[in-house]
């Protein structure tokens, strides 16, 4: 351990809305400079947790400190020391790019030449140099998200909360965005991020996984895969897979079958089934020349294993 105090400490953090518990006694610590991923199905409680951690929403139970400040008693100190990109785009679409940055900078108490210089520097940083005069609403989605990231960094926070920063962003632009996130972390900024793109979660040092308000897993990507997908994962490709998936699901030794793009991921008990055996089941059920091979488990396999454990199998 480095001995540096944790950037975030949550202890039994909870939030109820009337009789409904959205976040249920969640405890974790996030170290300085780490990229911490927070995953879960829709409604699991990710945004509600973030809103408590940034001092926007009071917890109804438990406690949390962020950058050394208590979120319940010092929400303003918390707000001043963090950057936040909300799930909903919050910049003014009808304002030019630079005006948006100046407006949000002023809200953080910045002004004059220092603010303008900082805004220029950030535009360069997120590859938007020279676009200060463009109307924000005319930017394509990926660039808007980069602008929102820039606006959250104006006051040089040591800790940023990014709530689904790449939702709806195209694959090329998502890579650019994640390069920026990793650069920030490499400079020592702590990043707390949510996403439904599980390939992105591979960039996180550690990941917390929420189900129905509870934190059910917290580990490195590798650790999560070892714990939650200890089985053999096979990838099946070919025609007629959808029709054959039902039969495969009922075969002894098969734990789960889920579509991944045009392919199927099949989790099997390694002692009972291998690739040729699965290919045979698929062929017998009508798939045309199925190709089956072993694959490394992905975080999406982990997500399906964790989130779907208590719910019916997903149809292909």
């Amino acid at each position, binding site marked *: 351990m480095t001995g540096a105090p944790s950037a975030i400490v949550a202890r039994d953090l909870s939030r109820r809305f009337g009789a409904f518990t959205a976040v249920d006694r969640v405890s974790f610590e996030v170290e300085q400079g780490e990229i911490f991923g927070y995953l879960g199905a*829709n*409604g699991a409680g990710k945004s509600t947790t973030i809103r408590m951690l940034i001092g926007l929403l009071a917890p109804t139970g438990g406690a949390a400190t962020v950058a050394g400040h208590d979120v319940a008693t010092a929400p303003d100190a918390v707000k001043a020391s963090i950057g936040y990109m909300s799930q909903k785009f919050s910049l003014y679409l009808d304002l030019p790019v630079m005006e948006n940055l100046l407006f949000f900078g002023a809200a953080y108490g910045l002004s004059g030449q220092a603010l303008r210089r900082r805004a220029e520097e950030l535009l360069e940083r997120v590859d938007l140099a020279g676009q200060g005069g463009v109307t924000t609403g*005319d930017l394509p989605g990926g660039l808007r998200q980069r602008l929102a990231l820039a606006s959250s960094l104006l006051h040089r926070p040591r800790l940023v909360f990014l709530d689904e920063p790449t939702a709806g962003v*195209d694959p*090329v632009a998502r890579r650019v965005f994640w390069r920026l996130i990793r650069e920030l972390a490499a400079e020592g900024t702590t990043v707390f991020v949510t996403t*439904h793109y599980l390939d992105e979660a591979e960039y996180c040092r550690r990941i917390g996984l929420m189900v129905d308000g509870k934190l059910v897993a917290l580990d490195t990507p590798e650790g999560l895969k070892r714990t939650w997908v200890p089985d053999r994962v096979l990838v099946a490709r070919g025609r007629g897979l959808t029709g054959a998936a039902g039969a495969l699901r009922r075969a002894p030794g098969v734990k789960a079958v889920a579509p991944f*793009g045009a392919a199927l991921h099949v989790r099997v008990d390694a002692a009972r089934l291998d690739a040729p055996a699965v290919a045979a089941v698929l062929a017998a059920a009508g798939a045309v020349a199925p190709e089956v091979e072993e694959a490394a488990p992905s975080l999406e396999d982990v997500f399906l294993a964790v989130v779907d454990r208590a719910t019916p199998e997903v*149809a*292909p």
Partner: protein
Amino acid sequence: MAPAVPAVEARGLFRRFGAVQALAGLTFQVERGELYGLIGPDGAGKTTAIRAVAGLLDPDQGEARVLGLDPLRDPAVRERLGLMPQQYSLYRDLTVAENLQFFARLSALPRPVFRERAERLLGITRLAPFTARRADQLSGGMYKKLALACALLHQPEVLLLDEPTNGVDPVSRRELWALLHEFVEGGMAVVISTPYMDEAERCHRVGLVHHGRLLLEGAPERLLAAARVEGLPRPTFEELFIREIEGAAA
């Protein structure tokens, strides 16, 4: 027999907004029973194309047809076409159940049909436990799924979905795709735009839109087979996308 009319036709669509040429000769065709994906970088023109097909936008040049009809001028298109726009809106102060009822009334669904479909969609979207919750108290992804459920209540002959699964979790995305496949097997034509390459791979055909026209079109497995280089590992669909877009920019 006369040849069947395609479900959707876009013929040489052009549309300019100020200095931006949003559509630059976009042409594609979708048959009944086909699931067609529009993919492409942010700002490529996917939404503009969908709006033109829906009759919400008058192209500068070219024309769109839905089931052989002109969506801009023929009121008969309205009942046969469904649309979930990228910027959709619900009644934020109505509950989940009330929003569904409202949309059912708009498309004049008979009560028993509504009840059956709503129940199914609430199950698939996992919103069933939350029917009494106001829309503005839903999570981002739940709100999106409610909008999608409202759009799917009315099962039209042609369905246009503009990035319907942004913010939707991986479990629900799979369930929604199973439903879309069921719809097209029943003969519906679906045009969907998506930034998810795993979803693109599940379309019958995709069109890769770039600067307002098609850069590439075909069945995903064919496109992948054509992109495969002897001796190298099979490319993923995302790698194919990135290669095409970066190649076009160079």
